[in-house]
């Protein structure tokens, strides 16, 4: 057993000397663009949602700082408690959740409505980090089918609950996080191959059981022009918004697609098309560079983590940021089918913002403490 290390021996001054300034800078830049963009997107709505978003981001920064204050290794055991709480919340959604547009995703906690599925992403990545850390300390051989049973269970329990809400997008992200982390644990190649085969077969078998609107989305994705006024409408209008931005965009608050309500969910899932319409290819390039920088920093932190738990935490958060960004932009630009996934720090939504900031806090935490022993 390694010697115990107490927090007291960690000199705060030394720790903060390693504060990941690039990460903070990139995150705050995206936040600023996000609020600015929301201010344009909410022109036609009655509520200026960008103000609320700014408050949420302020709160997010505080949460991230709190997360930063504790050594990430302290979260190892708390992970399980957090995971348990989130599962209970997810179950509670079914009992007393608020129904919006046919889906039960929110539960009221005091004055705010929270979306447990956003927290589930964090819960899964923390629980998996904890499990992989604990497991790989004692495992000599790479994991076989039996070995991956527990991590899969940890991933799919909340994923299935979220899918039932129904919220395909978030469930997909949870599974994507789980699978990415699994790839970073040591798994036999053969096992991975079997797993891949099962996933493909499962998808084909599950297709007939999807909700009609979900099926329609897949069909629409495969043939988007086929039904320009029906299910393909969102995909089509989003592409029109993005494409019509051309090189330099129409200018802030000059987008017609967003102003005239041709874009669906323009504050949340389709926020990127507002940005693309108004700021064009140049603006998109800037935003992509920022996201790429964010993920590059995250990958760097993962690669330099001092311990396995930290490593897995960083990988999990990286996976969350990466998949959400790529799936969201891919969907908005018509590369991927329409699924409800938010764009980190650009989309409006308190739970999403807080979840992302907790993730960022964990990342910074891992990054800051890589030289600590």
């Amino acid at each position, binding site marked *: 057993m*390694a010697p115990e290390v107490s927090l007291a021996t960690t000199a705060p001054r030394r720790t903060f000397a390693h504060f990941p300034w690039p990460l903070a800078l990139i995150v705050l830049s995206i936040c600023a663009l996000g609020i600015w963009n929301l201010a344009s997107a909410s022109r036609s709505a009655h509520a200026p949602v960008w103000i609320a978003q700014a408050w949420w981001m302020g709160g997010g920064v505080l949460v991230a700082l709190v997360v930063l204050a504790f050594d990430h290794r302290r979260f190892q055991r708390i992970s399980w408690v957090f995971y348990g709480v989130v599962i209970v919340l997810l179950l509670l959604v079914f009992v007393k959740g608020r129904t919006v547009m046919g889906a039960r995703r929110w539960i009221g906690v005091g004055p705010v409505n929270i979306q447990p599925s956003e927290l589930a992403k964090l819960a899964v990545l923390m629980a998996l980090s904890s499990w992989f850390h604990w497991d790989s300390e004692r495992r000599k051989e790479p994991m076989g089918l039996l070995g991956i049973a527990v991590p899969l269970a940890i991933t799919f329990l909340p994923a299935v609950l979220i899918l039932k809400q129904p919220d395909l997008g978030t469930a997909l992200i949870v599974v994507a996080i789980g699978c990415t982390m699994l790839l970073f644990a040591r798994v036999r190649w053969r096992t991975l191959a079997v797993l891949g085969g099962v996933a493909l077969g499962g998808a084909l078998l599950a297709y007939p059981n999807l909700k009609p609107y979900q099926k329609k989305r897949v069909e629409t994705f495969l043939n988007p022009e086929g039904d320009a006024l029906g299910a393909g409408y969102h995909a089509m209008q989003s592409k029109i918004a993005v494409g019509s931005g051309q090189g330099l965009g129409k200018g802030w608050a000059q987008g017609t697609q967003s102003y005239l309500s041709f874009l669906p969910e323009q504050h949340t899932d389709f926020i990127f098309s507002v940005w693309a319409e108004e700021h064009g290819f140049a603006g998109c390039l800037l935003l992509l560079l920022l*996201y790429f920088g964010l993920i590059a920093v995250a990958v760097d932190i993962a690669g330099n983590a001092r311990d396995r738990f930290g490593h897995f935490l960083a990988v999990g958060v990286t996976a969350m940021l990466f998949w959400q960004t790529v799936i969201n932009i891919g969907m908005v630009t018509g590369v991927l089918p329409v699924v409800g996934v938010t764009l980190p720090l650009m989309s409006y939504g308190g739970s999403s913002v807080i979840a992302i900031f907790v993730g960022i806090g964990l990342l910074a935490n891992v990054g800051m403490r890589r030289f600590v022993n």
Partner: protein
Amino acid sequence: MSLIPPSAPGVVQREFRTRLAWATVVVVGAFLVLLGRLYQLQILRGDEYKEKADENFVKELRVPADRGQILDRRGKVLVDSRPSYDVTLTPAFCGKQCDEILSRLATLLALAPEEIERAQGLLAGAKKLERFRPFTVKVDVKREELDVIEANGMDLPGVDVLPTPHRSYRYAGLGGHLIGYMNEVGGEELKRLNEELARTASPQGNYQLGDYVGRRGLERRFERDLRGVDGKKRVAVDAKGREKEGDLIAEENRLVPARPGHNLVLSLDWRLQELAEKTFPATAGVVLAMDAKTGFLLALVDRPAPDPNKMSGRITSAELARIRDDPLQPELFRAIQQHYHPGSTFKAVTSIAALEEGIFKPTSTVFCPGHFTMGAARWRCDKESGHGVVDFTHALGASCDVFFYQAGALLGADGIAKWGRRLGLGAPTGFDVAGEVPGVIPDAAWHDARIPGGYQRGMAVNLAIGQGDVNVTPMQQLVFYGGLATGVIWKPQVVLRVEDADGTVLQEFAPQERGRTEIKPSTRETVLKGLLAAVNEPYGTAFLSRLDGVTMAGKTGTAQVVKIGAHRLKAEQMGYFQRDHAWFAAFAPADDPQIVVVVLNEHSGFGSSNAAPTAAALVKAYFEIKAQDEAERAGAPAPRPAPPPAPEQKAAPPGRADRPKLGALPRPEARHGA
């Protein structure tokens, strides 16, 4: 509390190095794909999407052009347009609520069940892009209904009120058949019209479903002239089709003004027209007056005529069915579309044939015992007691049948037909309105081909007095009597010129001769004497309609519709449709004819009492009006106390003052101030 011990430096990093390298490849790859996609959408296909985005919110509303007016020869407005408001619905903008909105419209506008059914059909039938095309729910809504719709605007997505100039026929059915009417264009017709527009590279926009198109008469014949060039109004709309304020569309692109259609100036003189309408007692019949020197019509009464204001889409199917089922056939343009026996008015043709063929000399006489026999057959004269010895003058003046039976028997059908055709009968007059029938001037071959048993000699006896199978239209009678009057067989015309909205003449129609009568002067003189006798001699059939100051020459006619039985009955004793048609054809003054008049009063009995008075009144009025106009033109005070016109006013064409400026139709914005 125990914490995880840190791994030895480099251990974890080494363990994950390859995986992170793979992950980096995936991340870079994913971002490159996204960047490539954005490049494709925004840079490569940016223009295309920009266009689509603009199409998304730019809604083009049509600004319908004012249709050209129809004016009488003095510039009096007979037909123009008045503002009306149509309510339309765009399926794409009411979305799933369409049915609900339609039922609310039905309540607000008190739609008839058939109107609702039609709208439901259009809603259900609209697919894909058609859903963006508004269709008309109700035309010409009332003022109060308009206010209700505007007040509820926010709750009625997809509902628009479209200001549309609506055709206003100021004199309803007067001249109705000639002027025609408009109604909604049909599907097949739409395609044909648009192909024609494309072929002639017309600046006029395509016809669209729901558009009105000239249907009959001049409205149809001059459709292309009357129809203007529609303008466009571009407005920004949101995804629900609601108009958005703001400057999304540049000022100079918002409106392309409409160009009004051209005006038709007719040769009709509405003062004569109204007088003819007033003095003509018929339920059904025709009054035609023509300028003898040009062939242009001065008045055209044609009864019965449905109100074109109603026929232009304002009629219920029940009313329309009543018109269609009416035995009087109100939709028939009798002046050119109906065949009639000319009766005794045809005796002028028989006279000419007899004189020109040398069968009779101008001095020939015939004894009339009150009947005529040929073989076993016997024909009655109009006067049962007989006329005694009659010459041309007396025979035409008193309308003795026996004189002409004799002529017909000697001429045969071929002799009569030859001269009937030379005088312009048996062929369309060329009057430029669709649907003219040619008339029938039968010769022996005609009878052989159509009558069982073929041509019989006795048939010519009937033809000689305008019975049997001879058929003419009132317009042909007019042209023929015009030929008698002046020697010229005119192509009858009614449109003097086409002008643009500012009054600039675009096209002027000159008098057109179809031919000359080419008869001997002695023949003409002989016939003219007879026609003068008919009006001016005490024994003449139209003696009661003679005029002071003007010498009128004319001929009455009473065309039998059914075979006379053993006893001749009075008109009142017969059913309406068994009664004879009354004819009167005349021209005046006899020495230098200026006006030709033909009156046909259907099923009214005798020409002398039921057709001649109208003609006489018309001729009388014509000369009075002429004198009055001449007095005005000469600058002398007219009979009524008119202010002496200033010299510069004389230069202006007379009678133009009552003509409103075109384009004076209030624009939609103006109505709020009204």
